[in-house]
């Protein structure tokens, strides 16, 4: 069994990481740190783990060497201590945004502060196996992924790779998200009478994950608008674009099949009938699946691409564990076989 520790484990992503590692047949959860919950049992922050572990949170300074370290700290923290974390473990996955982008300039532009360890950026591999499976195998350092970026990237990647999008007309990704994207800390905007029932477009332009989508698709003219809705888990991207050439339904099926048929956690959802004809994040809660699909407006050459995920899973902890499996030489899907719930 390989020993894995989590730094910053009292948040929602940290809780999902703990749940996944505890259920993994080849991993042992060694330590979980939290400054505010140090000394408390894991179940004090993650009640679903009651009876699954007798670990207590420790201060981050008490973390000991392990085979792998998962960093679920707020943005900006891991890059300030990456040298120490690298000394603690041969394999490190950082789920914050610190090492997702390629350059310090890009990080400063999107995150508003200079990068604390720019020399480390090139050592990290972006932790989306659908993009970087070969590089992740055996890598020492991987970043996490942006949840909204993942939904958009997986929805559009088959079209971008095939070069069939009219880039001059642009691509607009309308992303609906759940409240867990806001993290475990609360504030005036998350107070129940205020938050409940909202359709709150909190980032109509300039969302930070835009940088990841542009880099992943290798298309600059992509824009995100993100709206918080009445949902706890989930991100649903509806991506509006125009085709640069006429394509049929069968052509689109081929593009999506070519991209995703061999991917263990990406499913094509494009059905002719029924209640589940397009991707729907509700049924993905707790699973590592990303469901993708499209709708074609043949008359106008417009395409609407869909991507649905659980933001805490495929958009964070699930992709991180999938990446860690590859980095450690384990089965890529190990510990990730939960298919979700229905009804839920």
């Amino acid at each position: 069994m390989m020993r894995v520790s989590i730094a910053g484990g009292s948040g929602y992503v940290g809780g999902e990481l703990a749940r996944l590692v505890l259920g993994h047949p080849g991993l042992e959860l060694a330590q979980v740190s939290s400054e505010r919950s140090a000394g408390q049992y894991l179940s004090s922050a993650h009640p679903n783990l009651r009876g699954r572990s007798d670990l207590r949170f420790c201060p981050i300074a008490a973390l000991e060497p392990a085979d792998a370290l998962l960093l679920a700290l707020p943005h900006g923290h891991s890059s300030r201590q990456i040298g120490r974390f690298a000394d603690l473990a041969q394999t490190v996955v950082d789920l914050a945004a610190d090492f997702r982008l390629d350059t310090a300039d890009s990080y400063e532009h999107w995150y508003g502060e200079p990068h604390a360890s720019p020399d480390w950026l090139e050592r990290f591999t972006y932790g989306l196996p659908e993009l970087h499976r070969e590089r992740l195998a055996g890598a020492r350092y991987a970043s996490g992924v942006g949840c909204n970026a993942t939904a958009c990237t997986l929805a559009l990647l088959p079209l971008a790779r095939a070069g069939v999008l009219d880039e001059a007309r642009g691509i607009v990704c309308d992303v609906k998200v759940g409240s867990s994207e806001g993290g475990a800390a609360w504030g005036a905007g998350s107070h129940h009478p205020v938050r409940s029932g909202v359709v709150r477009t909190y980032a109509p332009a300039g969302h930070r994950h835009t940088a990841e989508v542009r880099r992943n698709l290798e298309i600059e003219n992509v824009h995100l608008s993100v709206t918080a809705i009445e949902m706890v888990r989930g991100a649903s991207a509806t991506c509006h674009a125009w085709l640069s050439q006429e394509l049929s339904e069968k052509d689109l099926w081929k593009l999506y099949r070519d991209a995703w048929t061999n991917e263990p956690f990406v499913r094509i959802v494009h059905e002719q009938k029924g209640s589940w004809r397009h991707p729907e994040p509700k049924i993905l809660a707790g699973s590592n699946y990303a469901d993708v699909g499209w709708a074609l407006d043949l008359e106008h050459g417009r395409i609407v691409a869909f991507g649905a995920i659980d933001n805490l899973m495929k958009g964070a902890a699930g992709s991180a564990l999938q990446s860690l499996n590859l980095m450690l030489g384990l089965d890529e899907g190990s510990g990730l076989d939960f298919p979700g719930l229905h009804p839920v």
Partner: protein
Amino acid sequence: MSDNPIECPVCAGSVQIEEGAVLGEVVPCPDCGSELEVLELAPVTIGVAPDVEEDWGE
């Protein structure tokens, strides 16, 4: 089952027709969910099944 999968006329996916299928049998495409009707048996031919239509009692 037919020796070779039949191509779905909607999405080009693979549709398996069980041995013993009869004319008019409706099978769903596993990829796109289209309801497909067995039109011929030798060789097996399928097409999109017509939607149920209301006859309004006529």
